[in-house]
């Protein structure tokens, strides 16, 4: 309890906790869950976007999309590294993803159905992710905070590129504009759900806030996203996907319709449109790749042994 008080004092003083520092088991556990889930989201998030790489409409768009998906794999990589400093290996976390013990962001259980979804994902999904992550640059765990700095920088770039892509659609032919509208309609509520359930239903929150693992409430961040995004939709000349959207002069914020939380919990439970296919794709990649990982490892060992023998 003394240690605990000292730990909390360090956090309150704005100090960073580093991997070798003492930390409460629950802090460690919560961080592993949160960073792991974040890393998994980057990995699984490759799939809905990867779905359009082979159908990208121009060489330029294909290159941009490839670069984005590559960045996401990179984010996954440094997030796994950050989690590993807490004493869990990447392979352990991967196994937990693959057998369903660990989650990833539910947004990636929705399908990408037309090209404009690729723009919408960059703009809305990465946009929402940034709002979630910007405060985490100040989170108490050092490696996580530093990873977030790099991630946020790249995500902002993706969000701008996504907006540019959907803008081309919104300002394009009638069919393209219709695609853009369709994307926004389908992805709006799932994007709102990315901030998690309403504060009153959210578990884990209080302790995480005290530990500065979580910096803002879900509803605060969601409101920020709505306030930022509604004018962008209007700028694109698209209809607002939520007819309940209205500027509230008094609050100084947009009012909006709450997403259908029963859908959210359904998706979490595994019943989203793509849960099964996403996990199957990741499992297949992992299983099919076993011989490659084994082969490269065996070669590395042979080389190391030969080196030792030569010394």
């Amino acid at each position, binding site marked *: 309890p003394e240690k605990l008080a000292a730990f909390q004092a360090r956090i309150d003083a704005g100090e960073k906790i580093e991997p070798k520092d003492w930390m409460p088991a629950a802090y460690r556990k919560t961080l592993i869950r949160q960073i792991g889930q974040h890393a998994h989201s980057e*990995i699984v998030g*490759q*799939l809905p976007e*990867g779905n359009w*790489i*082979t*159908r*990208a*409409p*121009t*060489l*330029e*768009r*294909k*290159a941009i999309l*490839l*670069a984005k*998906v*590559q960045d996401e*794999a*990179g984010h*996954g*990589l440094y997030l*796994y590294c950050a989690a590993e400093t807490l004493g869990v290996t*990447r392979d352990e976390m991967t196994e937990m993803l693959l057998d369903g013990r660990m989650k990833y962001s539910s947004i990636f259980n929705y399908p990408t159905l037309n*090209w404009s979804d690729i723009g919408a994902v960059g703009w809305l999904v990465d946009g929402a992710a940034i709002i979630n992550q910007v405060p985490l640059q100040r989170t108490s765990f050092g490696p996580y905070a530093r990873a977030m700095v790099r991630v946020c920088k790249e995500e902002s770039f993706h969000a701008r590129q996504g907006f540019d892509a959907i803008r*081309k*659609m919104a300002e*394009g*032919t009638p*069919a*393209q504009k219709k695609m853009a509208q369709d994307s926004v309609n389908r992805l709006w509520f799932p994007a709102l759900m990315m901030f998690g359930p309403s504060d009153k239903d959210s578990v884990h929150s209080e302790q995480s806030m005290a530990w500065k693992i979580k910096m803002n409430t879900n509803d605060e961040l969601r409101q920020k996203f709505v306030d930022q995004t509604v004018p962008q939709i209007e700028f694109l000349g698209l209809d607002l996907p939520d007819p309940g959207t209205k500027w509230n002069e008094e609050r100084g914020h947009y009012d909006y319709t709450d997403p259908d939380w029963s859908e959210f919990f359904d998706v979490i439970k595994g019943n989203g449109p793509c849960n099964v296919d996403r996990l199957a*794709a990741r499992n*297949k*990649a*992992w299983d*099919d*790749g*076993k*011989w*490659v*990982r*084994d*082969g*490269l*490892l*065996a*070669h*590395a060992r*042979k080389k190391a042994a030969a080196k030792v023998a030569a010394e």
Partner: protein
Amino acid sequence: MTRDEAFLQFLLRMGDNTLILGHRVSEWCGHSPVLEEDIALANTALDLIGQTQFWLGLAGEVQGNGQSADDLAFLRDVWDFRNILLVEVPNGDFGRTLMRQFLFDAWHAIQLGRLMTSSDTRVAAIAEKTSKEVAYHLERSADTVVGLGDGTEESHRRMQEALDYLWPYVGEMFQSDAVDAEMVAAGIAPDPASLRGEYDALIERILADATLTIPDSRFGHRGGRTGKMHTEHLGHLLTQMQWLQRAYPGSNW
């Protein structure tokens, strides 16, 4: 065949190789055996697509009827493509993909080295810009081929199978025709046949490190770089690659 016609064919051969291989490699996105490979393959695909923009962009200029690199990539049918068959065969397992990459990278690196002294400054400039990327591709694919060839029994077996499957597609890189003769005469590009010695030396060294056996057949499929007879696989690839452009012609993306 005029020199410009031959030059156009040459440029299409270069650009279609990188386009189609870039497409194939991009199919791995999100499905690699290990995260580092996902990143590396995406990076390779990205480089190849960028190189395609150079080559097909120049092809469009030389053709002179206002077609952009995108028009060439997305609006031609199978018979108009000039890539070698090697790059259009399906990915197969990771081993086959990497073996194909290595067999191509080795040729590509040597070819670009020669093109850096092309009499056409635009060609020389593209070769200059892209050869660093390709040197890195080669380093990586060679390392992986060695690692997997000299890994476990299973990885060795799979790499040998990959090599056996792909070997008949290697010869096409060194076939010479009238187009090549014209390019040699103009000092634009080397005779493909003249690259074989250096190529063989390179791959023999790497494949020996990989404990793999080069098949002793010299038989080589042909028909890709002339467009006379591609494989059935290319048509399927194009249905994906070109669908949006075909379905919504005249859009800006």
